């Protein structure tokens, strides 16, 4: 956590700047390119700093993680080639 002190016309305000990203998100950011090459169009389950399951559907991924006993994984869709630009 970073705390900044900012002055507004001589009056000081304390602004807390909180930067929080989970282990799973950090892994995803660090490995996104490799995942896109290898797993494009699939769903992955991330837990801590690794991929614990891969599947073509969300249900398939959840089935695998339930069998493994993994609690609260992060489920992410990995875009396939051709999904570079988005209109949402």
């Amino acid at each position, binding site marked *: 956590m970073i705390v900044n002190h900012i002055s507004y016309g001589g009056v000081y305000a304390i602004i807390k700047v*909180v930067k*929080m990203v989970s282990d799973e998100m950090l892994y995803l950011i660090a490995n996104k390119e490799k995942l896109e090459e290898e797993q494009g169009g699939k769903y992955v389950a991330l837990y801590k700093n690794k991929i614990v399951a891969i599947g073509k559907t969300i249900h398939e991924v959840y089935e695998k993680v339930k069998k493994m006993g993994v609690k609260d994984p*992060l489920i992410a869709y*990995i875009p396939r*080639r051709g999904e570079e630009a988005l209109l*949402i």
Partner: protein
Amino acid sequence: MNKIEIPYIPWRGRYCPLVEVQIINQDKTVRTLAYLDTGATYSVFHADFAEELGLDIYSGERKDITVGDGGIIPLYIFKLELIIEHLKTNAIIGFSDRLGTGINIIGRENILDNYVICFDGKNKKSIWHV
């Protein structure tokens, strides 16, 4: 005043405002990614997540929404607890079995409209003033 900074995530080489979210229904939780979309009225998640949360999507209130090509897809709306990073809110969330992309969407209704958010594309992060 607090600020929460959430970094953009690369999406096939382009940085996008994707955030980690948790949706909670009683004792069931799902964690996934969603795209912050100020152009969307409703938040939309894949129907499979509703089933994982123990919801029968067709029991939700149906809303028909118009998408980019002019087509209409049905959404089934629920009020559920949503956590974006550590911001907790009772959100209106729609589920659809017609979502044609793997990406979920966080829209304005009852979520983005509740906050002051800066989309700092230059520095590749969204900044939430809370």
